[in-house]
């Protein structure tokens, strides 16, 4: 049974690096679910959070192949039990019908989301949480006017002082 693994990688924040990393995913045939990337604790570093579906061995190989890339300074698997894992999604819904509009407000509350934009016919909902929670919300709203979805992919950090970082 394939499992989902989360890998945190610290990479050089410069042009071409994203290409080289994603090219490696393709070339080595990894089944990547999502990649979230942004500036890390230092300006010249970026953190990539990669989720991959596969066997234990695939996750180990991915970490080794990442670390082999010279632009990757460090890569490590995160234990989901010991990490904070979050994803942010923006979801645009058709909210022209007043009945549906009130349903949306209700669901957003249940999912602890926020309405971040409203027009006479639409609403954008922001939800932060696990991938499953966002999937559940999207599935729920699919039948009444799901218009557009933008997700960041999961990003994560290890709980406590342990870190995937480099000494400066």
């Amino acid at each position, binding site marked *: 049974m394939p499992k989902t693994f989360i890998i945190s990688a610290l990479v050089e924040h410069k042009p*071409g690096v994203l290409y080289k990393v994603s*090219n490696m995913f393709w070339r080595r045939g990894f089944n990547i679910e999502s990649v979230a990337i942004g500036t890390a604790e230092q300006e010249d570093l970026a953190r990539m959070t990669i989720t991959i579906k596969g066997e234990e*061995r695939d996750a180990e*190989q991915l970490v*080794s*192949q990442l*670390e*082999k890339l*010279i*632009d990757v300074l460090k890569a490590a698997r995160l234990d989901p039990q010991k990490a904070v894992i979050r994803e942010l999604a923006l979801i645009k819904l058709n909210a022209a019908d007043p009945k549906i509009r009130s349903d949306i407000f209700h669901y957003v509350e249940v999912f602890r989301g926020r309405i971040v934009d409203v027009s006479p016919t639409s609403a954008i909902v922001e939800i932060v949480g696990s991938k499953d929670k966002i999937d559940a919300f999207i599935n729920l709203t699919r039948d009444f006017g799901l218009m557009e979805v933008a997700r960041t992919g999961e990003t994560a950090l290890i709980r406590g002082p342990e870190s995937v970082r480099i000494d400066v």
Partner: protein
Amino acid sequence: MPVYDILLDSKIRHILVRHEQSAAHMADGYARASRKTGVCMATSGPGATNLITGIATAHLDSSPIVAITGQVSTSQIGLDAFQEADMIGIASPVTKYSFQPRRVEDIPVTVKKAFHIASTGRPGPVLIDLPKDVQMDSAEVEFPVKVTVRGYRTDYKPDPEKIGLAAEILANSKRPLILAGGGVILSNASEELQRVAETILAPVATSLMGKGSISEDHPLSIGIIGMHGSKEANRLIYEADTLLAVGCRFSDRTTGKLDEFCPTSKVIHIDIDAAEIGKNKCVDLAIISDAKMALEALYGALMKTLTEKKNTEWSRKIKEIKEANNVKAEDSSRDLTPPKILKELRRILPPEAIVTTEVGQNQMWASLYFKVLKPRTFITSGGFGCMGYGFPASIGAKTAMPNVPVVDIAGDGSFMMTENSLATSVTENIPVTVIILNNRMLGMVAQWQRLFYNRRYSAVSLGDVPDFPKLAEAYGAEGLRVGSLEEFSKAVKESLEGEVTTVIDVPIDPEENVLPMVPAGYSLKDVIG
């Protein structure tokens, strides 16, 4: 152009090629023969893309080269300018690293880093893509004496605890076998390898890339393992209880069907590249280390662990199997057969002579029948299997080792792919000997069609052209055709004394197969022939 202009005033020797692919192969051959980093350079666009085949060849065989390509000016990058090609995009998957300095100030540190990365750790090709305006620009620059590249591991020492474990496993093993890969040659670990093998009386099989890591005259050498491996190696791998694999990546050509590759033995894997651990073969003990350092440490640990000479029964068996196969090998009554030609060549050449090969039957015959006695004297495109490699690589090797005879064992098909390097070898005065095992066929493909496609030959016949001796003469080289083993010997000896490249055309039977052979995807037990 700006770089070439400056080159006129430099001490660097420039060798002009007739096709860029050959330039990359020459740099590669130079590197493999000498342990130094080879350099090749090409113009932007088509010149640069022509290098790629040679760069990919060096990449799969971990050969240190630095490839420099021209690029359009920084302001024109991305605009599909004349002779623009995205070299970073194209080269990244087939290089260890690729640079594109965007400021002239970055050039010294980039070049220094390129050589550092290419030549250390697991070696490999590095590309420097140099935009035109950066070439034209000038600045006050500093030349760094040393560079560090963060994110690049430079500590290759083995974990002593794991070395201890490995020594224990090997000391308790009754039938150990060593599989030596190209990493042993790259790290210059032949002596250490031999010492470990002799200590535990383990037979040493090599991958194609590891050929020469132990002298093939050594009593413990059992030749190449794999698709065209020796019978002894492909058999003994199933009898071994412990496999010590050093500097090899368990490629499909080496292991055959992976699930059935030494299924019952314990496997210890030493490799400098952590990503090779578990990539193809799951192992019992992995040691991430430089091969030389690991074997040295392992020898030390074995000396402490081992109390007496052991495995004498195992080594007797190895001797018996080797002798039995030796007798069988001498049965052909015909004269110019590849095994006889290659054994004769070995007899003629001094041990330090360098042999390169093309790709196909010629290469596999060479690997089976030409005994290599010293590391770095057998140069072949193993991983990429790149036809056209051998001849330019021989020119590169000869450039690095001008006092050593260099011979390219070629097939007619492969040789034709880079034959225009004759112009380079003649005009640059780099004499080598090319031996064409000429079956007027793409012989390896023909062999597969003969064995697996019911002799339905499709697109393999090359006809009777060209006349190779005449072709050689047209380029100002020496051309000879031989009809017997005696003539062959004479021609080779003459060529070694000659001052110009010699092409020796050796007609062979087109029906000749390379045997033994394990069909692709089969277990090494399923040997044909």
